[in-house]
């Protein structure tokens, strides 16, 4: 009498079945591992840019404008990159679970390990300035990207609310207690700095980008109470490529003039 084993062997022979070649399994496993590594790498990049945006975020803005700290913090979070990070962590987990031994590890353990790897690699990338670079490239090439990431430029171009930012056109030593800046909308401002607290990294030199907290005193004039560096490269580059740079300065004792040639 034919046993199940005999019948199975018979079937294998009659249908000329052969074992699937080893390379097919190796290829499949390699693809899954490659997918896992790519997912971790993309997650790291997402973490890197998110970290850059978080570290350049104005977390203390509410102190100057009297807004809600919590609402400010929520609106300033880099949601796009955090969502990308989350998606790729999940993708990494999915790939890992489909490797040969992936089932041996708990889902949460794999998720935590993926996030940990993204944090470590992303932090290294952040130190190299990659986050800043990628943010700038994205902003330059994808208009929709600007709408999806916190818009600091608009936040800091609200003179009526006491917030202003821009590039220094005339330094303090040229006009005592004042500097002239051009904001990100192209408008020039005469800034009084005599009673301002100046961040140590700000030297009030031509070409430096700064952000100011204070009060608009009249048209084109602003009294600064706090002066800080503007440290977001993407807006600076965009601004510089769009603005006319031909500016000439004349000074007389007690008077200052700025003449702009278009």
């Amino acid at each position, binding site marked *: 009498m034919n*046993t*199940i*084993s*005999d*019948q*199975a*062997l018979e*079937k*294998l*022979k009659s249908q000329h*079945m*052969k*074992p*699937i*070649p*080893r390379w*097919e*399994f190796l290829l499949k496993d390699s693809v899954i591992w490659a997918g896992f590594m790519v997912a971790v790498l993309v997650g790291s990049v997402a973490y890197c840019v998110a970290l850059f945006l978080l570290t350049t975020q104005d977390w203390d803005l509410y102190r100057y404008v009297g807004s809600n700290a919590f609402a400010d913090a929520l609106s300033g979070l880099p949601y796009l990159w955090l969502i990308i990070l989350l998606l790729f962590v999940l993708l990494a987990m999915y790939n890992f679970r489909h490797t*040969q*031994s992936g*089932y*041996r*590890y*708990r889902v949460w353990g794999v998720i935590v390990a993926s996030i940990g790897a993204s944090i470590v690699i992303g932090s290294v990338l952040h130190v190299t300035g990659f986050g800043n670079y990628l943010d700038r490239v994205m902003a330059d090439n994808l208009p929709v990207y600007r709408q999806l990431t916190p818009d600091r430029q608009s936040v800091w171009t609200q003179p009526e609310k006491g917030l202003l930012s821009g590039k220094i056109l005339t330094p303090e030593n040229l006009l005592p207690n004042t500097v002239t800046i051009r904001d990100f909308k192209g408008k020039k401002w005469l800034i009084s700095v005599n009673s301002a607290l100046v961040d140590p990294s700000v030297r009030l030199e031509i070409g430096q980008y700064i952000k100011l907290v204070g009060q608009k005193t009249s048209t084109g004039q602003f009294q600064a109470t706090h002066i800080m560096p503007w440290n977001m490269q993407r807006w600076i580059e965009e601004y510089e490529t769009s603005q006319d740079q031909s500016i000439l300065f004349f000074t007389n004792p007690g008077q200052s003039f700025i003449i702009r040639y278009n």
Partner: protein
Amino acid sequence: MPTPEEYQLKSDEELVIMTLADQEVFLYLMKRYESKLLRYVNRTFSTRNEDAEDIVQESFINAYRYLNSFDQRLKFSSWLYRIAHNAAVSYFRKAKARPQLIDSEDSDLILEKIASDYDLEQETHVKLTGEKVRDVLEYLDPKYREVLVLRYLENKEYQEISDILQKPIGTIGTLLNRAKKHFVNHAQTKTLHLEETV
């Protein structure tokens, strides 16, 4: 060429390597596991012998086709049980049939093993017979029933169950504990129901 007796002395892993060179050698592996797999499938999924035989045959064919994917870090038996588990799940999904119940002899065995972990009479306030155990098992979720069968009837270690069901070893421990608790809960409910109808 080795004699049949020499083949019997070879390890599973050695037979796997030999099978890749000679299809006939696979027969020795299949013979070695035929009754074990049949019993496992019967206990876990079906009392209908024809179903179990189909599933075991399908398992052997799949095992042969996927022989090159066998991970030598695993026990061959775990790998083969996993294939049988997948074949059975696939079989019942296709047939849209619900797995049936295990037999009375196995019910007694499960009762004996679980009773060593729990004071069942104390927990359920009633003396459980093999028949009642079978009634209780009928209401257990298949995933709980399978883990009970693997642990108490197939005497598999946690690591082996983990490799068969492809779940983390910690999850197996949790699953087994839950299976035992569900067993006790169902035993209490079932007993009350039986007493009311008497």
